[in-house]
């Protein structure tokens, strides 16, 4: 269940191929890629800088993957999250889940993203024409994570 926190970009095809290689029990691979948008709350975004908490970031992502594995029947999962300066259109985050069937793989992938949004220690700062600003957390992210129930202590 690998986790990578890196400045560099990633290649979806290569990551999927590496995750499924040699395991022919896998019948479903679900992936999610998050991208930097060029607008946010009505303002144009020139660039974005992602800060994180080295050490805790990796631990929290590993914990989320363990939780996903305990809830659904999946073979493997991968999270790559970038940090540093990113431009509109750049890839930020990748989640890949491999399982025997699509139901568990879809659910686990969505769960991992919902939990990552509220638990992994990343913070976004946007550069706009009016200057830099820290992105505010969205209450919708909390409710997206809460709908999975059985919330672990936060």
């Amino acid at each position, binding site marked *: 269940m690998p986790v990578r926190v890196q400045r560099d970009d990633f290649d979806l095809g290569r990551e999927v191929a590496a995750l499924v290689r040699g395991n022919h029990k896998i019948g479903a691979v679900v992936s999610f890629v998050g991208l930097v948008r060029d607008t946010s709350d009505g303002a144009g975004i020139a660039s974005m800088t992602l800060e994180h*908490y080295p050490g805790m970031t990796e*631990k929290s992502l590993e914990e989320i993957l363990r939780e996903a594995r305990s809830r659904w029947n999946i073979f493997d999962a991968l999270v790559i999250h970038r940090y540093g300066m990113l431009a509109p259109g750049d890839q930020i*985050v990748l989640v890949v889940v491999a399982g025997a069937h699509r139901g568990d793989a879809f659910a686990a992938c969505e769960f991992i993203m919902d939990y990552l949004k509220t*638990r*992994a220690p990343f*913070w976004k700062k946007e550069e706009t024409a009016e200057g830099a600003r820290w992105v505010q957390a969205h209450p919708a992210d909390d409710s997206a994570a809460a709908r999975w129930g059985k919330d672990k202590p936060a």
Partner: protein
Amino acid sequence: MTKVLYFAKLREDLGCESESLALPEGVKTVASLRVHLAARGGPWASALAPERAVRAAVNQQIAKPETPVATGDEVAFFPPVTGG
């Protein structure tokens, strides 16, 4: 000593990324450490005021206000996370 880290907007508001401090008598939880830090006044009082959304971690695990803190711990304060 106890290591205290600050991230993102909180780090900028406080002008402090990390520090080592001796926990005073009576500071035994995340909540009481926050009150102790806010008592420094100035940006500390405003950025750590009770109405501000501040999250914490102890030894790199998400913590609650009542989570214990002790000498040798690594405590972090930060705004609600916005990754993904």
